């Protein structure tokens, strides 16, 4: 049948054109992500100490020493605290912001755009901003708290282990909540208004409407955002490194900080590679769940 053959030909041409468009990106990502990952894998079963030097095959020794070291498990534990803390603070702030921005009021369009300000500003600026605002000499927050009578003397926010971690989580969440908020807002705006109107007619209170309509319908969006937020906050390196360097007393040494230090300050490259591989396996497992919910089904055409 000639029609079917010409259809098949058209499909093949379309696929060839698509391959041409996709090939550059795939080659690029293959060379800069997949290949280095393979190199990491190879490094992790050798005993290379400094970049560029040659190592010898040691099997799973690095994995055994990493999995047997207290530093690794402590860093992993801190990463979990970091990720969970960020997820909770970030999502709560974002939810509140999204509910506010969903209302209509003068200037709402501007507010919906500029809310992402903290997210687009360079990390180094965020670091300077908070270093200065929280400074013990001058600054803004300490004098403000003293004036309000909350504290008597300036507090070193980064000087005790617990407060350093808590402060970092607040800063990072402050940076990321607008991103989550605009995503949640998009989810909120898709909930049909009639649902709320019908519920209001039936006498449901505002809170009941939120709990019975908003939350359940928003749940898939919330889930995906939580997973993405988890992955992205796990990867955060610069804010932590530049604000505390992993201190005080390693209290903010999360896994990325530990890997960086092991490779570039401790000169134990292979051990760092083994940690990287373990971290990748953990993260990509999580990411697979998220991607399954994000990828397009048949609606692309």
């Amino acid at each position: 049948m000639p029609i079917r053959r010409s259809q098949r030909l058209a499909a093949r041409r379309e696929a060839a054109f698509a391959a041409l468009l996709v090939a550059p990106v795939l080659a690029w990502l293959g060379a800069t992500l997949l290949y280095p990952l393979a190199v990491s894998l190879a490094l992790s079963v050798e005993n290379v100490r400094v970049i560029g030097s040659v190592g010898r095959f040691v099997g799973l020794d690095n994995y055994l020493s990493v999995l047997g070291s207290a530093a690794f498990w402590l860093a992993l534990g801190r990463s979990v605290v970091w990720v969970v803390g960020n997820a909770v603070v970030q999502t709560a702030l974002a939810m509140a912001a999204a509910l506010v921005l969903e209302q209509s009021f003068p200037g709402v369009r501007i507010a919906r755009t500029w809310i992402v300000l903290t997210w687009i500003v360079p990390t180094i600026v965020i670091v300077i901003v908070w270093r200065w605002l929280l400074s013990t000499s001058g600054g803004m927050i300490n004098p403000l708290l003293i004036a309000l009578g909350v504290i008597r003397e300036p507090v070193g926010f980064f000087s005790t282990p617990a407060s350093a971690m808590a402060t970092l989580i607040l800063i990072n969440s402050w940076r990321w909540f607008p991103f989550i908020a605009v995503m949640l807002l998009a989810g909120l705006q898709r909930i049909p208004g009639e649902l709320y109107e019908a519920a209001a007619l039936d006498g449901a209170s505002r809170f009941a409407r939120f709990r019975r309509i908003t939350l359940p319908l928003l749940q898939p969006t919330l889930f995906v955002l939580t997973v993405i937020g988890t992955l992205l906050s796990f990867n955060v390196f610069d804010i932590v490194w530049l604000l505390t360097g992993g201190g005080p007393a390693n209290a903010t040494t999360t896994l990325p900080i530990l890997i960086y230090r092991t490779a570039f300050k401790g000169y134990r490259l292979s051990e760092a590679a083994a940690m990287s591989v373990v971290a990748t396996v953990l993260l990509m497992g999580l990411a697979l769940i998220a991607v399954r919910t994000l990828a397009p089904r048949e609606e692309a055409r």
Partner: protein
Amino acid sequence: MRRSVAITLALAVALAVLAILVILPFWWVMSSSVKATSEIVSTSPTMFPRSFTLEHFEKLLGGSDFPRFLFNSVIVSLASMALTVAFAVLAGYAFFRLRFPGRDLLYRAILLAYAFPGIVVLTPLYGMMSAAGLIDNPLALVIVNVTFAVPFAIWMMRAFLAAVPVEIEEAARLDGASRLIVLRRIVLPLIAPGVASVAIFAFVSSWTEYLFASVLIQTDAHKTIPVGLAGIIGQYQVDWGLMLAGATITTLPVLALFAVIGRYFVAGLTAGAIK
């Protein structure tokens, strides 16, 4: 639904809190960058500057390597932006408009790449760059920046491409236009806001990149702002005026870009999330 007085009041309070949370820290930093040093370190902070001086900016631009860093950052970010946009438009069109075997699988693989921890490939990439003679070369930063911006950029293209009616493309195809012509002459102009959004995302993510720049670049001559400014912080321990001026100048280009295309940017950000 009409709002009661109580709800209106609550909304106003919530809005005020939100505005303070987002804007106040930046206002403090930017307004303080023109204060005299004595006012900056004063224990009774001022909301509006009482003194006015440009000495911090003069010191930063005249007495440090900052102009060099600024120049490097602009070059690296523009190059990363151009490459990312080209890749995202081409791949986005294929992923969201064409049918080909393995499409879903490849798209998922690229989404995975977005969440990929940079620290994992840091040492191997260092080794590769060193073998290629690209250590201390801005090109190395461009290569890495594109890698980490392109997955999200492709994802952002989705909503903009979905808004282009397939019928327009089909009509042009029937008139004898090749696929490449359709993409260039018909689709590209229609997704201009999407291209702008992707551009701003790529520019900003390159503008802010610290980790790779701190390892791949070694001399002051090639440093970008994040690493250069971090170095200045260490160098002059408590010169807050200098740091605040640096923070202000670093923020301005991003603000300017965002003022022009911020609306499309947020639209692209959120529309991509809609299934």
